[in-house]
């Protein structure tokens, strides 16, 4: 069963320089209890996708089309106040940078307890008990002592555990983790990945793992959704995709890991397009080694190629057959 079904989601940013078409046509599903990878280069729209599902896209961004079905309910049809009750309670988000996503002027206990109080209307000490319990789940040492401490008193890894606890406070059904290890030391990265894997398994949560790192995808995810310039290039389970990838995924997989770039492990020749004035036809055509004339003229549709494998490519038949 699908807990999340995103259909033709379109989110644009109306900036002074022009309309940034961050998400142009995003469709994918997430099966309940699964870990799904959301991958793509920087600027492909991964974070905006998560923000759109929670309906917290910052100004001047706006969701201008599509449907987001969560457990069968259309989130985009909800009143803002009803939507607010979903955030943190049914759907949570872990941010890329634990340091900037914790408010520097408030004690940890205060920040986290507010969330419990907001949703469950309990007394502060009851909320704090829930906070301690969840901090333990996130394996933060000395949860009781941490309550009165401020974010700057913790290391990066500890802060990320606090952020994970914040997302888990109310046992959400769906958790987005937006590159939760990008800003951490390599040794800490492995610990956080293990923690998320264990939590997903133990709590039976659905996890959408946003990442640049194909290694993390291979290690954690059952399915993967590949984004490029606001479009879904393909989606499906990882065996199928690693075996018969879309031209963009193929490039992602082939791209050499670069030692001089710790943030972006992969790099594909060429640049991600300008989203104010994106390429005609298939958005990937300027960088695609298989591009032919039709790729420049016609936008390829997202097609079901069988076996829950979806591909956006004019040439999928020949390419899939011929390799």
């Amino acid at each position, binding site marked *: 069963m699908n807990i999340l079904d995103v259909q033709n989601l379109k989110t644009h940013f109306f900036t002074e320089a022009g309309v940034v078409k961050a998400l142009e046509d995003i469709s994918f599903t997430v099966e309940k209890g699964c870990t799904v990878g959301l991958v793509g280069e920087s600027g492909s729209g991964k974070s905006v996708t998560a923000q759109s599902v929670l309906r917290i896209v*910052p100004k001047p961004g706006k969701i201008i089309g599509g449907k987001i079905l969560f457990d069968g309910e259309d989130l985009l049809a909800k009143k803002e106040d009803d939507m607010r009750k979903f955030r943190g309670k049914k759907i949570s988000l872990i*941010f890329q940078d634990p340091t900037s*996503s*914790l408010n520097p*002027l408030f004690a940890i206990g205060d920040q986290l307890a507010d*969330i419990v109080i907001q949703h469950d209307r309990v007394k502060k000490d009851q909320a704090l008990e829930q906070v301690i319990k969840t901090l333990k789940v996130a394996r933060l040492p000395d949860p009781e002592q941490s309550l009165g401490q401020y974010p700057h008193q913790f290391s990066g890894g500890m802060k990320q555990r606090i952020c994970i606890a914040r997302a888990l406070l109310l046992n959400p059904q769906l958790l987005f983790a937006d590159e939760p290890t990008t800003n951490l030391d390599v040794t800490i990265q492995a610990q956080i990945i293990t923690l998320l894997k264990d939590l997903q398994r133990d709590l039976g949560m659905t996890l959408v793992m946003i990442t640049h790192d194909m290694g993390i995808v291979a290690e954690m995810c059952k399915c993967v959704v590949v984004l490029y310039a606001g479009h879904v290039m393909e989606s499906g389970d990882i065996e199928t995709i690693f075996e018969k990838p879309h031209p963009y995924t193929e490039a992602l997989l082939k791209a050499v890991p670069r030692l001089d770039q710790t943030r972006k492990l992969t790099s594909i020749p060429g640049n991600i397009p300008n989203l104010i004035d994106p390429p005609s036809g298939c958005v990937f055509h300027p960088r695609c080694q298989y591009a032919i004339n039709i790729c420049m003229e016609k936008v390829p549709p997202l097609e079901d190629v069988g076996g829950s494998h979806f591909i956006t490519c004019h040439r999928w038949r020949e390419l899939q057959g011929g390799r």
Partner: protein
Amino acid sequence: MGLGKYIARRAIYMVPLIIGISIVAFLVMYAAGDPIQLATAGNPSITEAQRNALREYYGLNDPIPMQYVRWLDHFVHADFGKSLYGGRPVNEIISTLFWETIKLQLVSILLAFLISLPAGIYSALKQRSATDYTISSIAIFGISVPVFWLGIVLILVFSFQLGWLPSAGAHGAPYLWPVFGIRNETLDELVHLVLPATVLTLAGLAYNVRLLRAGMLDVLRQDYIMAARASGISERKILYKYALKNAITPLITLLGISIGYMIAGAPITETVFSWPGLGRAYVAATLRLDFPLIMGITMIITIMILVANLITDMAYAWIDPRISIE
């Protein structure tokens, strides 16, 4: 570190500063001219011998270092000496004028701060709306219009044309009493405050609003605000609890500076409105080279700025856990 110890240490650091500033002020003052010559310039019958007798009387013939040490000795005993004009003790002059200045300034600073809260928050939230533009225009007007010009315009309109408000002084506008039907001291003081406080509030308001608006816009873009939103915290709580505390810290500095410079910043307004305060007295004392009074007010200004700095630092440490008073 304990708070008491911290304050004590900061106070000790202030001593050399205060002495240094007093020496500089003393030297500059003596370089400016001879007060006796200035005071007696309009008197054609005075002889040089009589002038010298006056200098002798006020100790102005002694070497400057000796005069300074004598001044310092009085200063540490909390005595600023006597005015060269009329011989009134400087302590007495300052204490009567001090509260008039503080009253006007504190009212204006607090009004500017309080009005800027809703104005700054609102214009940040409704960025680029008509209200935002209106608030910004008033702010720019307040920053760019000189205090004396606005003061004079207000006096012309509300005092001379309409006759509603007094144009000068801080007390006693008998012609207004029949308007209220009573003679009420507080009401009388308030009526006198209206025009000068309006001018000063408008000037201060501008900086406050712009600072808060910019701070708010910056804070609302931060990840921790989006994270609070992603956790389902209500917009009201995000705004008034999580965003405001972050956005208001620059205003605390401005508040501290304004309070520290209360007296130093007062002369123009006090002169325009003939306000019986320290600022106007400072200008008058300087023009007359009334050395003891100049030194007295200079020292009061210096001490107020230093103390306001200390209080600002303490307020910062109290608001922001990342800053400790070390």
